Structure formats: structure tokens, C-alpha cells
């Protein structure tokens, strides 16, 4: 459960890091787009799952 709450934040890091690497000239724009899209999908998937389990746990208390 705890891991499920922490992992989405790692995906936020994955969302912002490519743009910083692009600014530093270490990544191309198409690569940035791909990384940002994956980070977005994973962030929403895990955040929604996390919110679902949290509300379920709160309901069973």
C-alpha cells in the first residue's frame, strides 16, 4: 500500500526530468515527448488506483 502511494511521485519526477535534460541538450524533443507521455499514463493509472484503495480502506475502517 505504502509503495503504491510513493511510486506515483516517482512518475512525476519522470515527467519533469526529460524537459530539464532537453534544456541541458542531453535529450531530443521526440524522446521528451515519449517520456512525458509514459510518465503521464503511469501517474494517472497509479494515482487513481492509489485513491481507489485509500477510499476502500477508509470505507472498511
Amino acid at each position, binding site marked *: 500500500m505504502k509503495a503504491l502511494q510513493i511510486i506515483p511521485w516517482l512518475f*512525476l519526477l519522470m*515527467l*519533469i526530468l*526529460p*524537459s*530539464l535534460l*532537453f*534544456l541541458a*541538450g542531453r535529450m531530443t*524533443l*521526440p524522446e*521528451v*515527448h*515519449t517520456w*512525458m*507521455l509514459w*510518465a*503521464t499514463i503511469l*501517474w*494517472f493509472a497509479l*494515482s*487513481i488506483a492509489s*485513491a481507489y484503495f485509500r477510499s476502500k480502506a477508509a470505507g472498511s475502517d
Partner: protein
Amino acid sequence: MELEESTSPSLEFEREPVPDKAQLGFKHFIGMYAGEHCAGTEFMLGPLFVAAGVSAFDFIFGLLLGNALAVLSWVFVTSPIATRARLTLYYQLEQICGKKLVTLYNLANGVMFCFLAGAMITVSATAVGVWVEFPMPGLTDIYPNSIGWVIAVLIVGSLIAVVAAYGYRMVAKFANIAAPWMVLVFIALGFIGLKQFIDTTGVTITSVGDLWDLATNHIWRGGEPLPGQVKFTFWHVTFFAWFTNLAMHLGMADLSVFRFARKTWHGIASAAGMYVGHFMAWISVSILYALQLHQTPGNTDVLPGPMAFKAAGLAGLLCVIIAGWTTANPTIYRAGLAFQAIVPKWPRFRVTLATGLLATIAGLFPAVAMQLLDFVALYGMLLMPMGAVIFADFWLSEKVGLQPEFARKTGISLNWAAGITWLLTLLLCVVLIRFAGIQIYFVSLPGWIFALFAFLGLSWWMQKNYSRKMILNKS
């Protein structure tokens, strides 16, 4: 601007002070403001500053000062009343002005919310243009310019309206999840735009001085505004940033939010919203628009969808859709509530749906979104006088020998002093704009001060006459 109510602490205690056990800590307000003020409107406002011919110094330092003034307004004007009275804006207004005036306030608020939601539907509809080719509206367009555009807005607007009517709470929850993601996409857009500017201009950045040179010579160059736009100076930016949320701070709408704050100083949490949304996000999106003008000088269209897609791919496009959607959703819902308060017999579902369709019709006309700087100033101006009335009633009435909360104490349904204050203040603002040549961005400050004294003066006259009438009736 903000994503109202989606993250509001609670809808409870609507007609009673918030009790101690329901009060919330500082951290809650930080998250709430940061999320709420990084919304769909930012995609329009950022570029419009560039279109207004703003210079780098005026933009950056104007935003720093204006946002600081906005935060101070929340801390020293809104929050002290909110944490003492602990009532919603509507209930407090009802105590002072009576039910009829609150109804009128609701109507004005509802209409403005409809237009704001319409602008957000416009923002979301620009995303459709990335997939389907049709002529998109230009910066100076007032009316819909193609069948494709009309269809795109009708589809997006109807979807938003139906969702707002059926599943408002679900979207509100989704908005909470999307908020941190959206903030980071805005930051990423800024970094990507900056790098593209560096590459396009061929400048080398080795110091802060180099970055400032890029900003002043290429990004925010100043000079003449684009056709149909007003030239923005330092003071325009300052006042605009200060008054973007005028209805919320000096207009007191956020009494409903800060009534949950444990301490008065929690008002400083608004800085998270101002410096994330109204500083960082505006800068980021304005860089993208400046880049578009730099690369294709003839292309002045402000189209958030294609702009964000070009910079951040599908993630950017999703950000435009979600930002527009999550801002329009609570706005339509709130407008629906405002209208329903006027005619309580109407079912909420139908009112929200009708409100959403009204917002969709507003969204068809790009003029609202393309002139969003003016619309935001108008929105604040229209509602600001009632904030001054609350301030005067709460802090000054007793000190000058007047009865505060006059409507509650006397049972009247319309406090004429407050109503005439509202009308006179708006009249003064219109006169200042039309005949004194003062632009709409600046009139709200003298207007607010005028409303303060006008309410006290008119209340003194009204209460004196009311006492005399009561004595005559008794005798």
C-alpha cells in the same frame, strides 16, 4: 485563475460558523491554492501578455509585485474576517444585505461563471484542431469562423456539460489527482520553450545575464501590442496580477475557503497559487507563444492545443484538455448552483445542464477567450463592491455608530444602502473608463475604496431613517 470548489474543504456549515473541530491546517491550503490557480485559463492569459507587447522587466517584476499584493490582500483583508466570522460569503452577505441582494449577486456571479466556463471550452476545443483539420479562430476573431470550429466546441462543450450535471464530484476528485501533474507539465512547457528559443536564436547561455538578454531581446521584447490588444506596461501587469482574483480576495469570495483556516496567517498559503499559477505557468506559456511569433511572425493565433502539442507532444495536449475540462466543470457547476439559488424549485441536474449549454454557446465565440485579460478585469470589477461592503460592515460599522448585519437584525430582505453602493460603484467605474480614460485594469482599486465609504454613508442615512420610522410606528 482558479479551479473553484473542486478542492474546497467542505460544503458543510453553510449557515453556521465553522466549529473548531472542522478547522484545517496550513498545509491543506498550500496544496489547494497551488492546484486551483494552475488551470485552463493560464493557457490563454500567458500568451495574451505577449500579445499585449509586454517587456521582460515589466512582465517579471510586475508579476512579482502584483502577486505579492494579491497575497497581502488575502492575508490582511479576507483571512482576518474569515477566521473571525467563519461564515460563507453568501451567508455573511445575507446578514448584511438581505436575501434579495444575495440573489442578485448570485445572478451576476452565475452569468460571469458561464462566460468563464465558455472560455475554458474554447481552450479545450483548440485541442481538437490537432487531430482534425479545420480553420481555428484567430486573435481578433469575435464570431465562430468555421463549421469545424462550431462542431468541435459543441461536442466538447456538450460533453463537459453532461459530465458536470451527472458526475461533478467524480471530476472534482480527478482534478485533485491531476493538479500536481498539471503544475509539472506547465513547468516542463517553459523549459522546452526556453531551449527551443535558445536553439532558434542561436544564443549561448552561460550566465544569468545571458538569460536576461534572451528574455529582453527575444522573448518579451516590449514594443507595440498585436492588433486589437491593449499595450501592457509594468503597472498593467502589476494591477492585472493583483486583481486576477479580485472577486476572491478584496471581493471576499474566499471567505468561504478561509473560514476553515485555524489561523489568520494561513491566508499566506495563497502565495502557492499566485507564484505557481500566476507566475510560473504564465511565464511558461508566454514563452511558447513568443516562440511561435518568433518562428512565424504572421501567426498571431492563440491556440493552446497546437502550442502545447508542439512543445510537449501528447502529454501537452492532454494537459490542455484536462486543464480546460477541470476548470470548466466546477465553474459550470457553480454557475448552476448560483442560478438554482434564484429559483430553488428547478432541479439541479437540469439547471447544471442548461448552464453548461449556455457556456458552450459562449465558447463558440472566441472573443471571450481572446479578450480574457479584459474579461477577468470585468469579472473582478463587477463583484468587488460587495467585498468592500462586507469589509466596512465587519470592521467599521460599529466604530462609526452603525448597526452591523443590518438585514439580519431588522429582518429586511433588501438593504438599499448595499444595493445602491453596488450600483454607484459600478457607475463610477464606468465613468472612469468612458470619460476619464482610465483603463478597466485600474478602476477597481478606487472603486473598492469608494464602495467602502459609500456604504458607510448610505447606511448612516438609511439606519437613521429606519430608526425614525420604527419610533413613529411604535408611537
